[in-house]
């Protein structure tokens, strides 16, 4: 019975098959409504534990947003969903109005314009600082092209500029593995910049940094906002206070409160579940 039906479907002349339409792998990012990231009703469960529970969150274009929350609040899982590492059980995730993140693979998402900095600095330790930036550079990523790829003067200038921004110009030919912890963190931010992402996800950028390094990192992130949208996940409340305009508090996989740092800190629920613990 099934065959005649699918045969009828197949011969239906008004139907346009997927194979005929060219696959649109990464349509242009469209932020004309002023929002760059839409997460709606996202739920992720691991063995019955709900890491994200109908999480709904919007990030505006050009915004610097801090996300705080206790361990297990779902911060890292949220990042995993946005970057394609984890698929949610339900919900929708859109990058701008035109790109459905849930249908893209990790490299596709990276190429669409979402860059991620991990909690642990993960630079390529065997490569030099310069090579790390070269690898992260936006552009064609097809394997055969890379055999013949040479840096253009414009690309060199780009790398030089980023080296300057992250303050590693003198270390350009050092192996990344030989850098200090703080320098590695900056190099990683530099690699993010080379990707020219529209949205940067930064996971605990100042963990393990000295106060001076922390201050330098705050300046760096503040200088990025505006040109890029930046989402920072951080535990260090002093650091959050120094950079945040809007803060979102996650708790048990959903948004507990959102607003300026003062508003959030006054919120009795937040004091109870998060700030209260620290006091």
């Amino acid at each position, binding site marked *: 019975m099934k065959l005649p039906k699918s045969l009828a479907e197949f011969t239906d002349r008004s139907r346009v098959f997927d194979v005929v339409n060219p696959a649109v792998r990464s349509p242009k990012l469209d932020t004309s409504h002023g929002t760059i990231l839409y997460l709606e009703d996202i739920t992720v469960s691991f063995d019955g534990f709900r890491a994200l529970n109908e999480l709904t969150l919007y990030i505006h274009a050009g915004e610097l947003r801090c996300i705080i929350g206790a361990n297990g609040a779902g911060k890292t899982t949220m990042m995993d969903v946005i970057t394609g590492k984890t698929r949610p059980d339900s919900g929708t995730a859109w990058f701008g109005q035109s790109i459905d993140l849930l249908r893209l693979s990790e*490299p596709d998402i990276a190429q669409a314009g979402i860059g991620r900095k991990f909690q642990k600095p993960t630079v390529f*330790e*065997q*490569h030099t600082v310069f090579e790390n930036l070269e*690898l992260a550079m936006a552009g064609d990523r097809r*394997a055969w092209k*890379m*055999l013949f*790829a040479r840096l253009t003067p414009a690309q060199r200038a780009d790398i030089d500029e980023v080296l300057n921004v992250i303050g590693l110009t003198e270390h350009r030919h050092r192996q990344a593995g030989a850098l200090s912890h703080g320098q590695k963190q900056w190099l990683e931010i530099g690699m993010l910049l080379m*990707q020219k992402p529209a949205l940067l996800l930064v996971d605990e950028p100042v963990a393990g940094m000295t106060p001076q390094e922390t201050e330098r990192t705050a300046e760096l992130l503040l200088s990025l906002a505006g040109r890029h949208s930046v989402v920072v996940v951080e535990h260090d409340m002093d650091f959050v206070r120094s950079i945040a305009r809007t803060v979102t508090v996650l708790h048990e996989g959903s948004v507990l409160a959102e607003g300026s740092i003062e508003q959030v800190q006054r919120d009795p629920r937040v004091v109870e579940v998060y700030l209260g613990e620290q006091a």
Partner: protein
Amino acid sequence: MGEHSMLSKLLRSERGSLVFLAILFVIGVGMPLANLLLPASSALHPSTYTLGLVGKYMTYALLAISIDLIWGYCGILSLGHTAFFALGGYAMGMYLMRQIGSRGVYGDPILPDFMVFLSWEKLPWYWHGFDMFWFAALMVLVVPGALAFVFGWLAFRSRVAGVYFSIISQALTYALLLAFFRNEMGFGGNNGLTDFKEILGYDLQARSTRIGLFVVSAIALGLGYVLCRWIVTSRFGRIIAAIRDSEGRTRFIGYRVEHYKLWLFVISGMLAGVAGALYVPQVGIINPGEFAPLNAIEAVVWVAVGGRGTLYGAVVGAVLVNYAKTYFTVAWPEAWLYALGTLFVVVTLFLPKGIVGILQRFRRSES
């Protein structure tokens, strides 16, 4: 910038490569000349047998380079690379079989002896075309390349990596070993392909042909080396090294890791195929034994002993271990496998960077 300056840049960047290519040139030119010009009584006269031995080592060295390319630079440990080596060898063997023509024992102008013996009436379809050298040469690249492509595509797409990849690559070569053992496959079964007479019309036993094969092996090794060196010094090379060091991170900056691994694996498989194709006319036989997983592991040991991730280290390892094997299997045959095992353990425990690692350490302490 032109080809020339790129090549010179490629070679200037590393002393080891330069030394290796110089030595290869001296051997590739010097040994045949010494064989031809010096009298047989001279101490410097290499016998034609020695020439054949060194030629065989050079094909092993090419196999070792192909393994180092994926293992040393991309962290893919294939324990089944002899599959590609043997397939290249079989493609060449099929050409050499067809060249025998009616000079076989049974005198059939078309069918190789083993087919007549099995009372086959006509040539299986996949033997057609192998009477032409260009077709066989093409198949030397295409067959291993295609197998590497299909196998690699399935493995890398499913993110099979590390020890799991090693195990299934070993299963692959073992499966081929069993398949080629069967007479019904049409590749001569247990006995394989042998009794070759001519290559391109030249008598395989003649000294001039042996010298020709030696020189071609040296050229193939040199070209294979330069090709690998070019790959690893390109941006592609930096990306595969990044994949080796942190695959997940490479994926997150937007590289399709599986494509990179796949193309590298295909190139490596083709190089191994060329090595096999040059090996067969020099040893005069190809049989299913070449698929043995033990051979594949031995080839990995060569690379480990020489030092991986340098290319020339793989050559050093291949030549030294095989020289030791030649010596041992004559002088003290039952000890060879123990010696090989001990060597592997010692290298793994004390010399993680192989022989090349020792040399580098010496140089650093000098300067």
